Each structure stands twice: as structure tokens, then as C-alpha cells.
């Protein structure tokens, strides 16, 4: 038996618009999932097919430019990176095929692994605790109270400063000799720490700076989500005697799950690619304690000139980001399906 061809009328309850009717398509009031309309299998008319082909071209017309741009900006560089990663290409030199030698070298590159640990630690601290702080700020600053806008504005303000400028400002703030933070601590009788020169503290100091810069943005995203939670749900839970904490846990948090996915995914992938703060504030030091993978890639590519090797490091980072992204989306999506 010939399989029924797909048609736009096959989805249950699909109704062709008046515009569709005007173009000659039949007006359908109801259809079942087999494509049977009013007891007859509908295969579509010639005009319908033309309309379907036209709509495909229209869709392509809308999506095409964006797809082409994405391909040009993301797919093509990724392919080029992949090709470079199996060569010994040096900036300004010639490339020779080296197979998996670059990937094998990564395994023995201790600085790469130290950078990987630093990057992971940075991402976990920044995004893990940062999301909690953003959520806390969003919960505190949603609802109605006097001065709400001012508080939101103050927390959001650092977002308007570029990371590079922020890094320069914080390098000065953190200066243990003449920086204002340690000067203030000294007035309070506390010996301020060496924020950026203590190998145990430097990465934490960069995390603090990154929170200052980013929490405002993610707070705004979460405020929008929190304020979008249907009030009827919250009210119903309260009427049933649920405490504030239970309302938060069982109503608010499940409702803002898509927003949380956005926050964790975008912030997390950004954190895995952290470069500016380390480059400007510490240049990866002291004792490589703030060396991140992207800083390593940059150094290998543009200082050591080993573009082939740097490309293989970039490919490893891409793979890690894709795996993390895949699992994050899957985990959050599962929750959404359950809802």
C-alpha cells in the first residue's frame, strides 16, 4: 500500500486559512492523524502542492540568510580549525600534515591540563554560585516595593562596562600595595590579602570580579522569569498552606526552569571560554594559577606561533563545550517534559 504523502493538512485539527482558501486550497475543518478528511484521504490538489513548494521557498528565504551567516561565521571556521589541528602550521609559515600528533602532544602538555582544571574550577564557581546569587537577587527584587528600580539598576550597571575595562579597574582595586580594598581593610585593622599575587587566591579574585560583572544581567533574565510565574499557581499553593520555601521549591523553581537553562548554559559556556580577565589581570599567573584554556590557545597561537597545535587545543575545548551543552540541554529538557 502506498504510504500517504505528507501534507500540511495532516496535523490534527489543522485549518487552512482564508488566504489558503483564496489560493484554491480546500477549507478543512477537521482531520485525523492519518490524514483522512471527512472520511476521504486527502492528497492535496495541484494548487496545494504549488502552495507547499512556495511556502518552502518562502521559509528558505527567511531562514537562508541567517543560515548562510551562521555557516560562514561558525561552520567554516570550525572546519578550518579542524584542518589546521592536524597540521604543524606556524603563523606565517607552511603547513604539513602531522596526523594526530598535536592531539597526542596535548596529553603530555602539563600546562594544558592545569589550564583545564583552572577553567573548570572557574566555570563551576562562577556559574554555580553565581546562578544562586542571581536567583537570590531576582527573588528579592521581584514583586513590588519602593526603590526596586534603583536596586536593579545598581546591580545591572557593571554589565554596561566591558570586561577589559572592568579588568583594568579591578586590577587597581585589588592592588595589595596601593589599592583601595586593602587600604580600607587596613583601616579596619585587617591585613588585606594579596588578591592577585597569591596563587591560592588569584582565581577566586577573578571569580569575584566576574560575578560583579555578570550577576546583574542574569538577575534581569531571572526576574523576567520569576515575574512570569502564574500568580494563580502561587496563590493556590498558599491557600493550601504551603510555606514560602515550599512555594519557591515546588512552584517558582519548576516554572522558571527554561530561564535557568538559558542562564546556566550561556554563562557556563562563556565561563569555559574565559580569557579577558586572566589576560589583563594576571596574564595567567601567579605560577600559572589563573591560566585558562583560551589563554593557552592564544599564547600557543600568537606568541609561540604554533597555530596547528593551538587549533587542536581549540578543538578539544569545542568538544568539551558541546558535551556539556548537550547534557545540560538534555537534563533541563527532561524536566520540562515532565512538567
Amino acid at each position, binding site marked *: 500500500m502506498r504510504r500517504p504523502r505528507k501534507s500540511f493538512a495532516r496535523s490534527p485539527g489543522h485549518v487552512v486559512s482564508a488566504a489558503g482558501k483564496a489560493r484554491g486550497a480546500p477549507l478543512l475543518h477537521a482531520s485525523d492523524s492519518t490524514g483522512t478528511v471527512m472520511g476521504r484521504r486527502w492528497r492535496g490538489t495541484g494548487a496545494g502542492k504549488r502552495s507547499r513548494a512556495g511556502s518552502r521557498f518562502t521559509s528558505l528565504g527567511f531562514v537562508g540568510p541567517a543560515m548562510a551567516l551562521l555557516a560562514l561565521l561558525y561552520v567554516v571556521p570550525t572546519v578550518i580549525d579542524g584542518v589546521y589541528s592536524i597540521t604543524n602550521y606556524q*603563523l*606565517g*609559515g607552511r603547513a604539513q600534515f602531522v596526523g594526530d600528533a598535536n592531539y597526542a602532544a596535548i596529553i603530555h602538555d602539563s600546562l594544558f591540563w592545569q589550564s583545564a582544571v583552572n577553567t573548570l574550577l572557574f566555570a563551576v564557581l562562577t556559574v554555580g554560585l553565581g546562578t544562586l546569587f542571581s536567583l537570590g537577587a531576582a527573588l528579592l527584587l521581584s514583586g513590588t516595593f519602593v526603590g526596586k528600580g534603583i536596586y536593579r539598576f545598581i546591580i545591572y550597571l557593571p554589565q554596561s562596562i566591558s570586561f577589559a575595562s572592568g579588568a*583594568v579597574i579591578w*586590577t587597581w582595586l585589588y*592592588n*595589595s*600595595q*596601593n589599592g583601595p580594598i586593602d587600604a580600607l581593610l587596613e583601616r579596619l585593622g585587617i*591585613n588585606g590579602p*594579596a588578591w*592577585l*599575587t*597569591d*596563587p591560592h587566591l588569584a582565581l577566586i579574585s577573578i571569580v569575584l570580579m566576574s560575578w560583579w560583572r555578570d550577576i546583574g544581567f542574569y538577575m534581569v533574565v531571572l526576574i523576567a522569569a520569576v515575574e512570569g510565574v502564574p500568580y494563580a499557581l502561587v496563590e493556590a499553593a498558599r491557600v493550601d498552606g504551603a510555606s514560602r520555601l515550599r512555594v519557591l521549591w515546588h512552584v517558582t523553581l519548576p516554572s522558571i526552569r527554561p530561564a535557568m537553562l538559558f542562564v546556566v548554559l550561556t554563562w557556563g559556556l562563556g565561563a569555559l571560554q574565559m580569557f579577558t580577565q586572566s589576560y589583563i589581570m*594576571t*596574564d595567567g*599567573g*601567579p*605560577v*600559572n594559577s589563573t591560566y585558562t584554556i583560551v589563554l593557552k590557545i592564544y*599564547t600557543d597561537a*600568537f*606568541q*609561540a*606561533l604554533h597555530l596547528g597545535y593551538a587549533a587542536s587545543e581549540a578543538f578539544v575545548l569545542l568538544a568539551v563545550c558541546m558535551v556539556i551543552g548537550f547534557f545540560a540541554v538534555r537534563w533541563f529538557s527532561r524536566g520540562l517534559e515532565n512538567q
Partner: protein
Amino acid sequence: MKQRTTVRGMRRRSRHIAASLSVFGLVGATFSASQIAAASTRTSKGQNVTITFLNVGASPQVLAYFNQTVIPDFEKINPNITVDMSTVPWGESFTKLQTSIVAGTADDVFVMGNIMLPTLASKHGLYPLTKFVKNWSMARDLNQPALKAGMWNGVQYAVPFNLDVRGLIYNKAMFKKAGITSPPSTWNEYRVDAAKLVQKSGGQIKVEGADWAIDNSVGLAQTFNLLLTEAGGQLFKQGPDGSATFTGNSAAGKKALNYLVSFYKSGISSTNFIDVGVAPPPIALGEAAMEINNASALADASPSVGSQLQMTLPLKATSTSKPVGMEFVNKLGIYAKTKHPMAAWSFVSYLYTPSVLSKWDSLLGEAPTEMSLAKTPAWSSGPFHAELVNAKYAQVFPVELQSTVIDEDLTSIVDAAIYQKESVSAALAQMKTQISPLLKG
């Protein structure tokens, strides 16, 4: 008739060939007289030419001097040439130069640091200046080892415009307060004095007895190299075939690194004092009593601190040895693919006008490469005179093809040693393992 025609035709053809050859020859000769002549002809015909100049590491004072005096004066003498200047900090200059050379967008004229030349020359990024320098009267007056440092594989690729000469800088007021009457001259005296000069509060160092120029760049590699040289060692040893072997992990290397680490172990120096590049170094801020640096520290200091700073001879490892310093030769180069080599060279040679070079170098606090300037009032006495004196004791910082990478690695290893994350022996072993392969590649 036919034959006559043929003969006439042959004659005509041979005349055509001869004429064509002579035209081609003329064109070829004109062309082979090179792009230099072409650029020169263009400018002499009145066509305006704009050249770009990357003035690496220029302070605001240097930029102001160039914008207000040097460039307008040059453009007055060369009305067809316009100079467009930009700057970039030292720490980012190598990446900037290298990527712009590969991308084909490098500036026509640029300032280069000591170790950049081999890499840029090997990437065919530098215009050969041998012919220019041969006919340049100023070349004879230049510091000859510094001029030689502008060569790679026998070709002159750059000309030196100043010497970053390291010597001992000390704070006279702090010495007086500590009861020290004269500056130290040996390693041992330096450590003893530094221990007396260090100032602490609540267990933390507030003023370092001695600062070692830790920065976010390759300052530590330079410091280690200087101490290594003072201890009688060298970073590389050249073989008869021109190949280099790493020798920084020798007995002299061990002595140098042990000496440096001892300052941090005994709490005379602190890793918290970092020269961030955008601010004066610790000695110029009154945060250190002594520092091995160039006279730029004097130029960068505030008047109250600067008046107390004095530069003197570099140290000697023992009382019987000679003071040994180190100099880093800063150079000017021309981009290999510049469209205006003649105009670029005109600008470069103009910068060697004695008054221009003297002012430029004094603003940078670095010694001029023109020997005749040593006799002028600006350099025969005054705060920068010591730098010229120290140049007599200085050795040119050793450079290899992979020096930019080697210095990064060396900095990282010495960093681990002074933070005591690695023992001195382990650090030296790591130097050998990490740097030796770079010399081969």
C-alpha cells in the same frame, strides 16, 4: 622584390625587437633600481605619501613630543610625506607586529624590542636596510654592538635607537634612614643592605629591601639572565655550526637562581610587588629601596620620590669580579611589504637627528645609541648619565630565533621557583627540558 621585402621586413622586425628589448631593458632597469627609487620618484613628483608608524611602548610624554614636535617638523621638511602614528604597550607589541605582518597590514615603520628581530626577520616581515645603512653617515656614530644586534643572518634589518641598560637604582633617603652610607657593589652587600632596608607592618612587607622587576611580561626572564651573566654563565652556547645549546642550568645558573630565590625566602622581597606596566615600577613609587632597572624608573617617578633616586653601577657577583650589566637594544624596523620604503627610511633617519634622538631617549629614560650624544650636557651629567656609564659594562641580551617563546617559558619557571612551588634544582632541570627543544626548532 619578394626578397627585398623579406630583407626589409627582417630589418624592420629586428628594429622592432631591438626597440622592444631596449624598452624592456629600460623598464627592467628602472624597476630593478627598485621600489625605493619608485617611491622616491612618486614623492618627488609631488604625490602625497602617508606612512604609518607604530611607536611601541610610548609614554604620554613621548606621544605628545612626537605629535607636537617630531612629526610636524619632519612633515615640514618632507611636505609630501605624512606620518600617522599609533602606539601599543610593550606586552602586546610582539603579537600585534607578528599578526599584522602575517595579515599584510603592518605599519610601515615600527619600534621593535630586543628579542623580536629574529622571529620577524625569519617570517620575511622586515625590509632589508643593508643598502641604506651602508650609505648612512650616522651609522658610524652608532653604538656598534647595538647596530650589530639589528642584523640577522648577515642582513641589517633594524637600526638601534636606544639601549635599555640595567644598573642599580637606590633610594638615598631610605639608605640614610637605615644608616647605610654607600650603595652596595657585590651580591653579598646587596642582600645584606636589602635586609636592613626592608620595611614591614603586621608581618607584611610594605617596602621591599630589593625589587626584582616581576611583571606580567618577561621581566623575570630578564632578571634571571642578568644574574646568570653576572655569575659568569650564559643562557645559550653557540656551536661552531651556529647551532645553540641551552646552558642556563649550569653551575652559574644554579648560583643565580639560588641567589634570586633567597630574597623571597628570607622575606626581603615580595611577590606582591608587580610592575603592571601601566604604572611606574615599585622603586619609582617608593615601594622598594633598591631595584635593578634602567633609568626609566627615574623618569617615571613622582618628583618627591624621583629626587631621592640614584642610579649606579651594576652589581658584581664577588668582590674580585667586574660589574656586569645587561642591555636590551630597542630598534626601528621597516615593514618588508611597505609601499613607501624610501619615505619610511627618510622618517627613520630623521629620528636620528641628534636633538630628536636625545629628547626621545631622555623621555624614555634609556641611553641613546649615538655615541656623540654622550658629550652633550643632557647625557654627560644629570640623572641619565649613569645609564651611559653602565653601558660600558653591559652585554647585549642574548637572542635566538625562538627567544620570544623561550622568555615566556623562562619567566614561568623562575616564577615557580620564587613562589617556592619548585625547588631550584627542579626549576633548572625544567629549563633544560623545556627550552632545549625550542633551540632546535
